[in-house]
């Protein structure tokens, strides 16, 4: 297969590598402008409180302070939905009330922004914050979803009576799930709990904003969805869209967190108020408190029905999630979770619903996996339980139920391609599954070993739930080199390289001949942005089609020069060849030069532009294998080895695909075992605000990791590619949970699977 391609499938070096390796790469926090002010945000020390009054006089009197922003400044500005998702969705009438303000008169969670300052430097800005005297009227608060639903519970926001942010159901129900469960030979069920997880992007949120002399708002933003950010900022600050210009320099990680507005509203408000450039860089604590983190579920109740032979007949799920003080992106975590979790197994009876509940904790949102992670933690453990009860191998029960191409995929669309079976077989062989599982179990001794596996499917873009509109422009220069104008989020996914490869492959030129033009809403066409593992697929799809259009123009001109009909021409190695007579050829640059520097009224610049809005998505599939050691005295789990086998279609750059899966393992491992977003139950204070209290895995925590790429093309993706951004982490927690069960015979239904939970489960088993 690889031989067919000259650029696609190659382990190319990334175009942004040298800038990042030398320190030349500029992130938002690195930018400076003359006269620039530094902003800081004042955050509520209460989980729920009304700002009765703010005395700003001492702060304003401090030399170097340019402005103080309080809820009294809001008159001219609109409230907003930080998730920016005011679009029709299949989930139905999905609109989020724009109740959040730039700074809030009612603080709805510990750390909610209530005021901000801008000063000539960071030290003075910090001192100014400490001089703000805020009088709070403390309000009763509620921290978890179950309590928030009780009658008489404190009301988090008037926009959600009874604290029900959203009640949502699975958009593609089938059959009669209750009847199927009643008729099943075996029903396995369980209640599970998942946790908030902080994205822990190494670069914290940051924004630089200024209003130029013409009155245009210039914003250097990290947003993954830059065009949506432009529209949303225009709405908030009552500006026409063309008066807002978003620019994206390099971004130090995102993982879904920058899919919402972060530092932008406060930075822009202060820039408008001071008429000076204002830079706001969040501290690590600001990040934990002020940004969205992974949506946690207080309860997920799952029931699966099986026939004796292991055939899955019913899936029923009920989710209870907490949204925090604003709705944000959190509600959709339930719909995505339900939709994708029912994606890889054939099952004629399916139903799910979810209550997404307002609580006085930091806001829930999208993080890599976006609900699928939570549902897979439940379903893949229950499938293992069913396998054991039915006397089947965990792989065999999954093979029996795996969907095939042509069947209905997760979002009601036809499944274009699936090589999940290949993933399971290749992964099992590399892992040594049969040998490891057939070894006799140790029942004595402190350290117990076990192995487990899990599978999953994940979306490649979220059509038809979300808009999937991407655009690309491909322009030939006079030497045959190309500028590709696109706007994926430059968050470190090697997407510039992948899009360059797609473009170069289609044009028959080298990847080094392609330069990316990006990071500016003025020069790029509309781009929904980078989320839902969509960039290679959707922006890549637009790129491929735009390149095709540019190539048509190139070949039409070359046809005249070579006196060969255009359909008899092809390009490779940066030359145009006659298919019939390869001796007849011309350099691509020569054709471009001839067209651009052409007198007589015929001059033209070959350029292709393509809008692309796929109404389908081709799910990616994966199989995950974990080997663990459990210390039965301390409860500590050590993952010693991990194998991930992935069907992400044709890998445009295998090195980049490996990088996504290896990185996903780090985040999945933390989510599974150590990353515990803690809120004090008595005070509502967030206790984990930096890496000393919130443990993300380091080099010494990582298992030996192997990645297998099945590398078979999907019929619809560009050169057969599917998405791979999120899948890397989705299957990790259930594979580890199943390995823990194999080691010590207890099932852990709560994330993270901490030593305390392991020891408690062991103690319960012994009783």
């Amino acid at each position, binding site marked *: 297969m690889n031989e067919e391609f000259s650029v696609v499938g190659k*382990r190319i*070096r*990334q175009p*942004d*590598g*040298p*800038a*990042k*390796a*030398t*320190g*030349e*790469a*500029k*992130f938002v*926090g*690195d930018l*400076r402008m003359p006269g620039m002010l530094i902003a800081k945000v004042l955050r509520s020390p209460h989980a729920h409180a009304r700002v009765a009054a703010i005395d700003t006089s001492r702060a304003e009197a401090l030399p170097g302070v340019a402005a103080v922003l309080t809820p009294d400044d809001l008159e001219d500005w609109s409230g907003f939905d930080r998730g920016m998702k005011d679009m029709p969705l299949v989930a139905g009438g999905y609109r989020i009330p724009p109740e959040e303000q730039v700074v809030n008169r009612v603080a709805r969670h510990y750390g909610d922004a209530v005021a901000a300052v801008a000063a000539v430097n960071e030290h003075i800005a910090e001192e100014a914050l400490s001089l703000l005297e805020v009088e709070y009227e403390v309000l009763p608060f509620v921290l978890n979803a179950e309590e928030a639903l009780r009658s008489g519970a404190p009301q988090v926001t008037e926009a959600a009576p009874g604290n029900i942010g959203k009640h949502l159901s699975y958009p593609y129900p089938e059959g009669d799930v209750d009847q199927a469960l009643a008729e099943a030979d075996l029903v396995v069920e369980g209640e599970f709990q998942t946790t908030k997880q902080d*994205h*822990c*992007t*190494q*670069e*914290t949120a940051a924004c630089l904003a200024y209003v130029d002399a013409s009155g245009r708002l210039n914003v250097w933003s990290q947003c993954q969805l830059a065009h949506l950010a432009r529209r949303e900022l225009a709405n908030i600050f009552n500006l026409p869209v063309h008066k807002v210009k978003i620019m994206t320099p*390099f*971004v*130090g*990680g*995102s*993982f879904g967190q920058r899919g919402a507005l972060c530092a932008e509203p406060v930075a822009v408000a202060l820039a408008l108020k001071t008429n000076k450039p204002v830079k706001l*860089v969040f*501290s*690590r604590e600001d990040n934990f408190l002020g940004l969205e983190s992974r949506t946690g579920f207080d309860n997920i109740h799952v029931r699966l029905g099986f026939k004796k032979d292991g055939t899955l007949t019913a899936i029923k799920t009920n989710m209870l999630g907490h949204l925090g003080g604003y709705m944000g992106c959190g509600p959709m975590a339930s719909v995505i979770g339900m939709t994708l979790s029912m994606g890889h197994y054939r099952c004629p009876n399916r139903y799910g619903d979810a209550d997404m509940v307002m609580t006085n904790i930091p806001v829930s949102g999208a993080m890599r996996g976006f609900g699928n992670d939570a549902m897979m933690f439940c379903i893949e453990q229950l499938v293992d339980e069913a396998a054991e009860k039915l006397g089947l191998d965990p792989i065999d029960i999954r093979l029996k139920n795996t969907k095939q191409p042509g069947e209905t995929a997760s979002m009601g669309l036809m499944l274009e391609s699936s090589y999940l079976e290949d993933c399971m077989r290749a992964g099992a062989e590399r892992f040594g599954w049969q040998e490891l599982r057939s070894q006799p179990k140790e029942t004595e001794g402190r350290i117990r070993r076990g192995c487990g596996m899990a599978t999953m499917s994940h979306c490649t873009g979220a059509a038809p739930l979300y808009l999937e509109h991407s655009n690309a422009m491909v322009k030939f220069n006079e030497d045959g080199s190309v500028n590709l104008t696109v706007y994926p989020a430059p*968050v*470190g*996914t*090697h997407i510039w390289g992948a899009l360059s490869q797609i473009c170069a492959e289609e044009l028959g030129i080298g990847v080094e001949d392609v330069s990316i033009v990006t990071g500016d809403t003025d020069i790029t066409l509309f781009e929904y942005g980078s989320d839902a593992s969509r960039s290679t697929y959707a922006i890549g799809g637009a790129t491929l089609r735009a390149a095709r259009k540019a190539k048509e123009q190139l070949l039409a001109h070359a046809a005249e020069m070579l006196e060969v009909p255009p359909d008899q021409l092809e390009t490779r190695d940066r030359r145009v060849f006659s298919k019939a007579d390869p001796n007849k050829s011309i350099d691509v640059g020569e054709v471009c030069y001839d067209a651009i520097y052409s007198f007589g009224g015929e001059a033209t610049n070959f350029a292709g532009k393509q809008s692309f809005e796929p109404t389908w998505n081709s799910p990616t599939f994966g199989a995950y294998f974990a080997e663990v050691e459990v210390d039965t005295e301390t409860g500590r789990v050590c993952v010693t080895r991990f194998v991930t086998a992935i069907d992400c279609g044709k890998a445009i750059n295998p*090195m*980049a695909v*490996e*990088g996504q*899966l*290896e*990185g*996903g*393992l*780090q*985040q999945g491992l933390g989510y599974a075992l150590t990353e515990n977003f803690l809120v004090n139950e008595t005070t509502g204070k967030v206790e984990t605000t*930096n*890496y*000393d209290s919130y443990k*993300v895995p*380091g*080099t*010494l925590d*990582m298992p030996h*990791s192997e990645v297998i790429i099945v590398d078979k093309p999907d019929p619809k993706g560009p050169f057969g590619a599917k998405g791979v951004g999120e899948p890397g982490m989705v299957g990790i927690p259930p594979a580890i949970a199943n390995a823990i069960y194999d080691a010590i015979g207890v099932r852990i239904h709560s994330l993270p699977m901490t030593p305390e939970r392991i020891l408690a489960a062991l103690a319960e088993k012994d009783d």
Partner: protein
Amino acid sequence: MKTLANFVVNGEPYELAIEPNLLLIEVLRDELGLTGTKHSCGVGNCGACTVLVEGEPVLACLSLAMAARGKAITTIEGLAEGPTLHPLQEAFIEVGAIQCGYCTPGMILTAKALLDKKPDPTEEDVREALAGNICRCTGYVKIIEAVLAAAEAMRKGAAR
């Protein structure tokens, strides 16, 4: 009250009038414009701000600038010689060890300190040396691979 202080950064001498409570990261980034040194956790937990002082890795977000007066400070901007990248920089690009790139300067400098002392490290040595540097993108696999590859390239270079 500002004080005059002399620094040697990437071989260049600087004389600066600074407040004595400034952190090394503030002098490098704000006074000298060397923004390759990154701020991330601010409390010495993540290694993003690592620079070399007399060849030893130092967390610039925790160190007073005054403590580094007169000492040789190396930041990521000082590693390449003109257009020729340091073997670590080359290896990080070559094996795909850079994703978002935010931890990269700290990773490369921490690794340089290791390789300068121990030109032939084991994988375990590399894991130990980088234990204080957090990366949220790569899972460390290709970072460790890059350091081992750079070590080999540097040994070959030295043997020539």
